[in-house]
């Protein structure tokens, strides 16, 4: 019996030592598990993105390289860039500041994806709102989008083309040629202007922003001293500079719903600006 008491006591003491060891390494293990949870959520989010979002937002979320889900053919991207410095870098990120959104960028993306953007092509994804995704899946894809904003990517604000102050100075630049309206029509689609403004040759096709079919005339009436072209030039580079009066769903909101990153997105090829201007001016 003494042996049994001894064995029992030793076993009990060993258990306590083992538990003590487990308690000591616990903080590190908890961190590891947190990492595992986030990592796996991002993995799942990636798959959800590939299956649902890439057709509009592009394979890499840059609103480039979009393929039709059925045929696999390349199509113009209809969505905004999500893999974008302005959306995913900083807290709050520039996009959120521009919109005057109160809350974090995580909440902004989660909310936008859940309920979609009414009047635009961005559908509601949450099952509760008639979409195909569960709340956990929305969280996962949100984490995936934010995961583009790693340290390196966010280290410095993307350099933007030095846009001149006036459109005349811009058009006079050496490497800018006279605008080509047909190329402009493509740019209009590729940058997703149609998602909000509809097609200029179709009155009433606009969902979020004003119809641009008559902007060549109305544009000249917006800001004193600005020609229509000058006005459109500034509207694209800085949507908040002047808020248009009438949007399809009532007065346009201030701050503008129009993304502020076109100045950056057109930087890779400033000729796009000339083309889109000539397209909108109906040349």
């Amino acid at each position: 019996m003494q042996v049994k008491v001894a064995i029992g006591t030793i076993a009990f003491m060993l258990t306590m030592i083992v538990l003590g060891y487990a308690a000591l390494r616990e903080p590190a293990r908890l961190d590891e598990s947190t990492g595992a949870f986030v990592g796996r959520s991002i993995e799942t989010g990636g798959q959800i993105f590939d299956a649902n979002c890439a057709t509009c937002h592009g394979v890499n979320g840059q609103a480039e390289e979009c393929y039709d889900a059925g045929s696999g053919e390349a199509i113009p991207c209809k969505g905004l860039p999500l893999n974008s410095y302005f959306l995913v870098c900083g807290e709050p990120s520039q996009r959120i500041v521009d919109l005057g959104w109160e809350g974090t960028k995580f909440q902004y993306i989660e909310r936008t994806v859940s309920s979609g953007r009414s009047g635009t092509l961005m559908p509601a994804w949450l099952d509760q709102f008639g979409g195909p995704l569960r709340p956990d899946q929305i969280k996962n894809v949100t984490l995936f989008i934010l995961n583009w904003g790693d340290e390196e990517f966010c280290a410095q604000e993307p350099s933007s083309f030095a846009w001149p102050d006036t459109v005349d100075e811009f058009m006079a630049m050496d490497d800018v040629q006279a605008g080509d309206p047909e190329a402009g029509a493509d740019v209009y689609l590729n940058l997703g202007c149609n998602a909000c403004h509809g097609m200029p040759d179709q009155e009433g096709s606009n969902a979020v922003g004003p119809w641009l079919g008559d902007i060549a005339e109305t544009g000249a009436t917006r800001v004193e001293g600005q020609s229509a072209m000058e006005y459109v030039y500034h509207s694209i580079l800085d949507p908040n500079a002047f808020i248009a009066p009438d949007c399809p769903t009532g007065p346009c909101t201030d701050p503008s719903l129009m993304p502020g990153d076109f100045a950056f997105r057109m930087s890779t090829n400033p000729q796009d600006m000339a083309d889109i201007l000539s397209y909108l001016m109906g040349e």
Partner: protein
Amino acid sequence: MATFFEQVSEMGIKQATIAKADEAVERLTAGMNISDIRAALRGDAPRRPNPRLRPHADSFWFHIRPSFYHTEVTHIYPTFRLGWLSTFMFVWETITGILLMVFYTPSPLLAYGNMWNILSNVPLGQLMRNMHRLGAEVMVLVVALHMLRTFLTGSYKKPRQFTWVTGMLLITLTALLSFSGYLLPWDQLAYWALTVFLSGAEAAPAPPVVNETILLILQGAPALGAAGLLRWYLFHVLLLPLILGIFFFVHYYKVVLYGISLPPSREQIGDDTAKRVPKAERTYFTPDILTNELMWTALIILLLTVGSLWFWDAPLEHHADPVVTPLHVVAPWYLAWSQGWLKLADKTLVVGFIPLLLVSFIVMPYVEVGKSRRYADRRVGFTVAFLFIAFMLVSNWMGTPEFRVQSSPELQVSQEVMPQEGNNIMKGVPYEYLTPGVYLPGQEIEGNPWLTNALAAFEEGMSRYSCTLNGNPNLPIEWEPCEVTQTGAGAKYANHFTNDAMPDPYAELRITQRQSDMVKLTLFYLVEDPENPGEFLIDSGDSIYSYRNETSGYTEECRFLNKDC
């Protein structure tokens, strides 16, 4: 009786305190004072009248236990402590289960997140979860072994038939308890195992109205969802433990009533002398049995703790998804036999057979009424039992995905190398070693034993599902020749393993960087149609892939015994 103050004035503060403490201890133990306890621990003979017997009359916990055992049944043989161990495991599960309940909400919206919260936010949460889940599997095993031992020693025979009957209820409840817990994490593993189980309930050999009603009761709605999870949670934490508790007491009452049966060789054939214990053969509960049980308690706790910490890890797969059926739905090992049967026989037949089997086990002691418990006299019974055990083991093996292939060969290979759920050799490759590039099956990568391993598994899988028509021009691997059969829907290519093999396939593993801390692993297969060159039988394109994030930590999990990767 004198008050404390009177005692103090009578014998001084020290003596009075000791006397008071003695009194308190005697009340707590329902009969033993301090010196009695010390004497028992020293191993002295008890004083007369024996104070160690009083707790068995006066205290609740001790009155459940007999005051002495026949010395013959206190050794490892014949009980192997298995009944006691079953009881211990039930208590263990209750305690760890209550702790887990604190952190769990039975809702599809929250349950899966709760599991991750337990793992990543609750101190010692993972240990607790592992203990509970490991305990559940150990309990099933222990109860089954206990059943085997009571069968082998013939302890189900008269007068203990009813003990056996309650035992059958207990093992059924134990399996159901274990299985109902399986659903609660609300991951893919859980969801689909239960879905398969419920589809069984639906196929029972009864009128459709009955089946539909049963199904409705079991999942609370036409489809498994919030209502179903709540019900299974309540089964798991309330209903089943309650019934099991009740039948445990019936079971144990019968055990005490008839005494534990002596080893068959120690009594005359047909005798039952368990209750007639000569004075010299008595082993008293206090102190011997008690000490023994405390020692085992300490040892088992140590084993379970160490096991849950270093050797065994509770699985947690992706969030349950009713629209994505994993390629292989796995039942827990203790129910895998039923899955094996389902692969061979008609569902209705299987679902009808199981209750029949249960009933025959329950009535067995009333039908098998041979007098002798001696092993030599029970050859027929043993033979039947061992055949049955062998049958169950084979059925269990048939229940695993190894048996009977169902999907197309390229998915089958992918399932072996990189399934969507569960562990796999790919997860064993640390993130740093997943260097972007294109790799062939069987390729050896210098300085990268992990990837080399995974590619070897890839080659192994490929060679199982491939064959060659013209010496395999596409990959530097030798395959066995194809057996070609012409069918209406084109030629079929077979090898010794499968009759749906890929003729001269090309396959590769592509690793690409998806995000700065995440790679994409794509398994690509291309099989040209030998009959129509230029057409492809299989072109998996970009469709078979998974992601690996730097922090996902699969590799850390791989060190556990039950995760081979």
